[in-house]
């Protein structure tokens, strides 16, 4: 029987309580031992791999409907301007043009929590939506867009976070730029007292860039409005969220809105909710009575489809001489653009270490830039960089090994609640990682030693010699003799990833003896479909080839949560296992009739056979049983149960980086990265490994190259394409290594799984920054570590092109520059 319960739910670092319906879990028993498992815990190629490699997979970009109209959004070239006039006559006169939507004729639909309209007479960022042109094909729509005559009255603007915080800055919103009214505050203990108690206080101001998602598939939707029913094909991470929001905006019952997405070309948090272009396509589809396709181009994607907010973080850490932390004090500001919230930047400061006195505040700041959105582990990537960097400075001040310092502050219970962890493999991750990486030897060998670094390329991007394939320790040859500053660093990771209800699934036994898993979850590219097939096959003792997973359609299956927050596997996995167990229960009941046996005496064994326990010859194959059932379909139902109230559930990890800095060019070459993560039970090591590697690569991009560049003069985004915005290429990728602690979480859910998507991006940049500190003695306060920034740092601190320190750095921050070198050996 379904029950309504109140449960705590953590999503991306924020906890809230809500009502959820839960059902009795027929899969109450833990899974058998790992060796006995056939699918769960074993690598399995994607069940939809053939579609992906043959080009048959249908992405939202590929959706073509009869009579489909193409819409192109016209965007503001100014960061802030009043639209004086829009003349659409020439555009409308172009054959094939069907409609032009502007703020003058767009229905007054409210957009976002600040109460804006879909289209406003004032544009507030470069790329803001001005008009939408619909035409019979995309070329015509673009031609017509170019024919729109728009007069702007440019207005004062501010695009830089710190400029926007100044009292006389142009105001983005009437409430002011610094939104103290939307700040998130946290405090435990007494931070001032903790700082007074400290033998050492380190502090620093940290800056992180706005990172652009650049999913390979840009945002896009096809909206097909027929009568009072709407079908939306959307490249989204949250089918039900899009349905809910769209229905609200247009005053429709949710059941009249259907959202479909089978394959998706990446999202990374930027596709968490209904996007504005989808709503605009909805307006046009309703008006025109035809399906409307609106797909953003790469530039629009980078201007208007979300970004990781840049941050300014003022951090202080106090510690006793023995390294025990007495206080962590963080004041963080996030440039959220015209709309958005500050991510949980203080999450790591609050959660990572056993420190009695912690205070954090996260403040959103408006700038005339596109709305910020979640980006893979929002807040935690930025916060971990600051916290873990400053911790290394503290270690240097105290003469402690950075890893030892972390162990001395290891949190045995969740410091925010006092609750025990459901499971915590961080110590194991430290141990495994340090051993595999060779932490102690490398830490001793690195530091200031000038060396002819092996593996160094010639500094040319894309040079095959420094490629992803390189083996550590093999010189590339050409410039092998140049001096390099080598260093190693590490950083820790904490994140949620518990998953939770509501999440539902069905498992249907088809008349042909195959099984269909049905749920309206989404596979955003991580391998969800495969993992769910593995779980169902395991529970049903069926060859996985007989399991099919249907997903990606709100009308096609029961509710599933957003594909974000590292929660898909720990939410949907247990629901599918429950549904499969419910199906098994019914199958045994039915087989009991056929076999004239008490169902309690029956068991289901591989490959899909029901038999009498102890008498295997008395049995029936599932195929035969299903045939006997005629067209009756066994439907097992399953729900994700609530998380236990008495435990804190988190994922953990540690990453280690080895780098070489070229003091002549400023190039940082990452020689290798090592990651060990605790994500609970690993269902599919093959796809989970892909998550880890991909996260590290995005983290490397964040550390070394990714940065939205804004022109302070024009207020425009200068890096709005993949030419000017550098994402890692294959040639930027060092050897990557990873391992899992792979211990099932004993209490979180019926599979013992935790999330994997976000953890691996969290500590990478911090580990690289710490390696830089180790290599040069210069603490890193700002990312990305581009060559220009590295050269500036090196020279500022007196390190010349030969890698030698020629004079005392002018800008020694007093917290470790110069004396932090070689950490642990002050």
């Amino acid at each position, binding site marked *: 029987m379904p029950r309504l319960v109140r449960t705590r739910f953590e999503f991306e670092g924020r906890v809230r309580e809500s009502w959820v319906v839960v059902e009795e879990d027929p899969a109450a028993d833990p899974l058998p031992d790992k060796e006995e498992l056939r699918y769960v815990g074993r690598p399995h*190629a994607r069940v939809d791999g*053939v579609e992906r*490699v043959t080009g048959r997979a249908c992405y939202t970009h*590929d959706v073509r409907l009869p009579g489909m109209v193409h819409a192109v959004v016209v965007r503001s070239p100014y960061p802030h301007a009043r639209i004086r006039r829009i003349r659409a006559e020439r555009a409308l006169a172009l054959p094939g043009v*069907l409609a032009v939507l502007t703020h003058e004729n767009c229905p007054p639909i409210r957009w976002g929590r600040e109460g804006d309209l879909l289209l406003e007479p004032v544009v507030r960022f470069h790329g803001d939506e001005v008009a939408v042109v619909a035409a019979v094909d995309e070329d015509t729509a673009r031609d017509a867009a170019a024919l729109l005559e728009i007069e702007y009255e440019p207005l004062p603007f501010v695009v830089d976070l710190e400029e926007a915080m100044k009292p006389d800055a142009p105001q983005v919103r009437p409430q002011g730029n610094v939104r103290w009214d939307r700040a998130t505050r946290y405090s435990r203990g007494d931070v001032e007292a903790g700082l007074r108690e400290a033998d050492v206080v380190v502090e620093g101001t940290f800056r992180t860039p706005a990172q652009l998602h650049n999913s390979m598939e840009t945002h896009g939707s096809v909206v097909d409005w027929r009568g009072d029913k709407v079908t939306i094909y959307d490249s989204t991470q949250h089918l039900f969220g899009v349905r809910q929001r769209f229905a609200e905006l247009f005053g429709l019952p949710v059941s009249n809105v259907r959202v479909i997405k089978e394959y998706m070309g*990446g999202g990374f948090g930027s596709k968490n909710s209904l996007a504005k272009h989808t709503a605009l396509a909805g307006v046009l589809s309703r008006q025109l009575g035809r399906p409307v396709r609106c797909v953003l181009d790469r530039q629009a994607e980078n201007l208007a489809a979300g970004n990781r907010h840049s941050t300014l973080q003022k951090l202080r850490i106090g510690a006793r001489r023995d390294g025990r932390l007495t206080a962590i004090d963080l004041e963080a500001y996030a440039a959220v653009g015209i709309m958005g919230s500050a991510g949980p930047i203080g999450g790591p400061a609050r959660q990572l270490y056993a420190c009695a006195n912690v205070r954090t505040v996260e403040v959103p700041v408006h700038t005339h830039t596109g709305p910020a959105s979640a980006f893979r582990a929002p807040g935690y990537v930025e916060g971990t960089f600051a916290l873990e960097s400053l911790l290394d400075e503290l270690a240097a001040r105290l003469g402690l090994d950075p890893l030892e310092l972390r162990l001395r502050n290891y949190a045995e219970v969740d410091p925010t609640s006092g609750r025990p962890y459901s499971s915590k493999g961080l110590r194991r991750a430290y141990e495994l990682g340090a051993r595999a990486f060779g932490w102690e030897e490398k830490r001793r060998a690195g530091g200031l030693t000038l060396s002819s670094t092996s593996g160094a390329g010639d500094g040319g991007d894309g040079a095959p010699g420094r490629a992803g394939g390189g083996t550590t320790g093999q010189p590339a040859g050409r410039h092998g003799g140049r001096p390099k500053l080598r260093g190693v660093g590490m950083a820790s990771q904490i994140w949620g990833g518990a998953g939770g209800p509501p999440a539902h699934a069905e498992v249907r036994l088809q008349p042909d003896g195959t099984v269909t898993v049905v749920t309206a979850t989404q596979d955003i590219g991580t391998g969800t479909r495969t993992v769910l097939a593995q779980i169902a096959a395991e529970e049903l003792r069926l060859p996985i080839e007989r399991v099919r997973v249907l997903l990606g359609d709100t009308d096609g299956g029961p509710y599933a949560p957003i594909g974000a927050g590292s929660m898909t596997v720990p939410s949907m996995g247990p629901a599918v296992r429950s549904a499969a167990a419910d199906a098994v229960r019914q199958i045994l009941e039915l087989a009991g009739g056929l076999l004239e046996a008490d169902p309690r005496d029956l068991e289901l064994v591989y490959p899909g056979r029901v038999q009498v326990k102890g008498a295997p010859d008395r049995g029936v194959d599932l195929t035969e049983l299903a045939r006997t059932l005629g067209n009756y379909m066994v439907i097992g139902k399953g729900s994700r149960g609530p998380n236990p109230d008495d435990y804190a559930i988190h994922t953990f990890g540690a990453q280690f980086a080895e780098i070489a800095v070229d003091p002549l060019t400023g190039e940082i070459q990452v020689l*290798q990265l090592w990651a060990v993560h605790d994500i609970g039970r690993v269902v599919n090591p093959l796809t989970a490994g892909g998550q880890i*590697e991909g996260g590290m690569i995005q983290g490397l991009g964040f550390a070394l190259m990714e940065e939205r560049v804004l022109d302070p003069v024009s207020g425009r985004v200068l890096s709005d394409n993949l030419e000017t915005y550098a994402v890692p290429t294959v040639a930027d990728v060092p050897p990557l290594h990873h391992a899992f602690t792979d211990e099932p979480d004993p209490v979180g859910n019926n599979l013992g799984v935790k999330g994997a998507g976000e953890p691996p991006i969290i500590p990478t940049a911090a580990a690289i920054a710490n390696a830089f500190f180790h290599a040069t003695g210069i603490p890193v306060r700002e990312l990305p570590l581009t060559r220009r920034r590295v050269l500036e740092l090196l020279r500022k601190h007196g390190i010349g092109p030969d890698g030698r320190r020629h004079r005392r750095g002018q800008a020694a921050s007093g917290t470790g520059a110069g004396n932090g070198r070689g950490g642990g050996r002050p």
Partner: protein
Amino acid sequence: MIASHEPSGDPASRPAETGPQFRERVLIDLTVNGQRWRGEVPARRTLLAFLRDDLGLTGTKLGCDTGNCGACSVLVDGELVYSCLVLAASCDGRRVETIEGLSRGDALHPIQQAFLELDAYQCGFCTPGQIMAIKALLDRNPRPTREEAVAAVAGNLCRCGAYPRIVAAALRAAELMGGDGHEAAAAGDGDDGGGDGQRGRGEQGISTGNREQGGGEGGSS
């Protein structure tokens, strides 16, 4: 502002504004995946738009439309091109190969097989382009070094970060093609649902791939 007129057919057929000396439409005759295609295309249409919108071959992806990402990579006369930078009109008389031309029925090309085995993708959006880039490499150089494999896909972005596996898949494909070639790989595909045996073969392929990756570049553990 709804336009009051009815669309008059293909807008590309409207009179040229730029003067009579420019043709708005061009007759082309080419083969795509072995099939001949003859007809008129708008002069400005890219090969990418032609493939996706005129021929419905949506396996080739549009990631940027400006020659930066490689998602639209196809082969023209065996040469790897970004199809977003090539005009369809310039492909008259040429031979175009896209991802859809790689597999034969259910038999995957060894490159596709290698991608599948090694999970050399996540979202899969860049995958067709990566595969075509590797095909261009292997057609010319059946035994590439790791560095050559890296160079071959250096123009193909993968935001999910499947790079180490993509390189491993290129090398694995070379290996598969070196033996009995295409047929051997196709036999290993076996999506005939052979139960346990089929699964066994699949897993063996995976672990081989991981060793390859692990040994070659210290990949996953």
